[in-house]
């Protein structure tokens, strides 16, 4: 009786799938809070290096502002920005954005921009790109990301915000152009957003301040 056997196989598969899903769901519940706090710690640890050359006297992590979707920044989910001040005057902003058009999934990026719209640093927080090729964008693997420092929308002008192979000003990585292309585009979009919204970004009150006032 082939029909009975097919039915039995289907039921067995469904039961095993349900058990496996329950296992993953339980582990997720168990680890979720720790993973979130680890990611936050890693993010805060990366903030300082991205601000190289900027003189400031404010605490960075208290100045977090969440920008809910939809927004003009790269990435579909809510973006975040840390504002940096010296003598209560805004000096720089650090954006946490995600580039979506990488090779495998979203690339989480930290982009530092000073008040005049010049990049102070770019750091890749998380990605799933190919090891040995696209992962050269990591600061620990190569100095590819350092070419963004001191760039702005005027340097190079609009058409130059592409890889050399696409007729622009930015180096690709040997054997990988999809990942660098996605990051160049995300940094450019972040600069354009900052150019248009800098005043609003610095004027908004921080998430922590909002929570206490509400």
């Amino acid at each position, binding site marked *: 009786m082939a029909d009975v056997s097919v039915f039995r196989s289907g039921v067995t598969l469904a039961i095993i799938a349900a058990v496996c899903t329950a296992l*993953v769901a339980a582990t997720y519940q168990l*680890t979720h809070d720790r993973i979130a706090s*680890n990611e936050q710690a*890693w993010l805060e640890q990366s903030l300082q290096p991205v601000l190289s050359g900027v003189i400031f006297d404010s605490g960075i992590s208290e100045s977090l502002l969440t920008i809910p979707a939809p927004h003009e920044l790269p990435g579909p989910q809510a973006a975040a920005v840390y504002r940096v001040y010296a003598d209560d005057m805004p000096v720089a902003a650090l954006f946490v954005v995600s580039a979506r058009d990488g090779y495998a999934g979203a690339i989480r990026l930290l982009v530092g921009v000073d008040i005049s719209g010049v990049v102070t640093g770019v750091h890749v927080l998380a990605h799933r790109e190919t090891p040995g090729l696209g992962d050269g964008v990591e600061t620990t693997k190569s100095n590819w990301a350092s070419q963004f420092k001191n760039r702005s929308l005027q340097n190079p002008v609009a058409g130059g915000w592409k890889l050399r192979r696409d007729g622009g000003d930015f180096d690709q990585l040997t054997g990988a152009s999809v990942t660098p292309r996605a990051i160049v585009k995300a940094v450019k979009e972040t600069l354009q957003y900052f150019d248009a919204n800098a005043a609003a970004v610095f004027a908004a009150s921080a998430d922590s301040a909002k929570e206490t006032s509400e």
Partner: protein
Amino acid sequence: MTTPTFIERLKTGLWDENPGLVQLLGLCPLLAVTSTFVNGLGLGIATLFVLVFSNALVSTTRRWIQGEIRIPIYVLIIASLVTCTELIFKAWFPALDRSLGIFIPLIVTNCAIVARAEIFASRNSIGSSIVDGLVMGTGFALLLIAIGIFRELISLGWLLAVLPPGAFFALALAIAGKNAIDKRHHE
């Protein structure tokens, strides 16, 4: 046929049938992450963990599973365990997780795991399958650690050792060394 003792089985996993040295399984992660001792250790432990639990689960469910759907079930079990392992690493060993990156989720493609499920766990009792996971996983982990240490030390004087070709040289030397020792024992 007498049942082999734990020591005999340990020797099988570590030496006679070492998944990396003899069966040449799971070479992709083996070659890719063994540039340092810590990476070798991290991936070794993660693989050992997945192998023990996948053997245990495959053995537990072996009575209810029809032959024609066994492979999708192994895939389900192994993929779930690897996802759990990745979450555990992210929660408790975040630095190691960043350094191993994509290779933790890629444990799912390590053919040593599905091979043990098919060859051993689907035909043996739970206890015996757990022991098999332990000895085979330990054999694989020790090889990862040994190659990691070797490459990290050699790279102090010879940069090529940490680059991809260094992995092939190191594994080739390890296999040649094992074969030479075995040959001497036979004579």
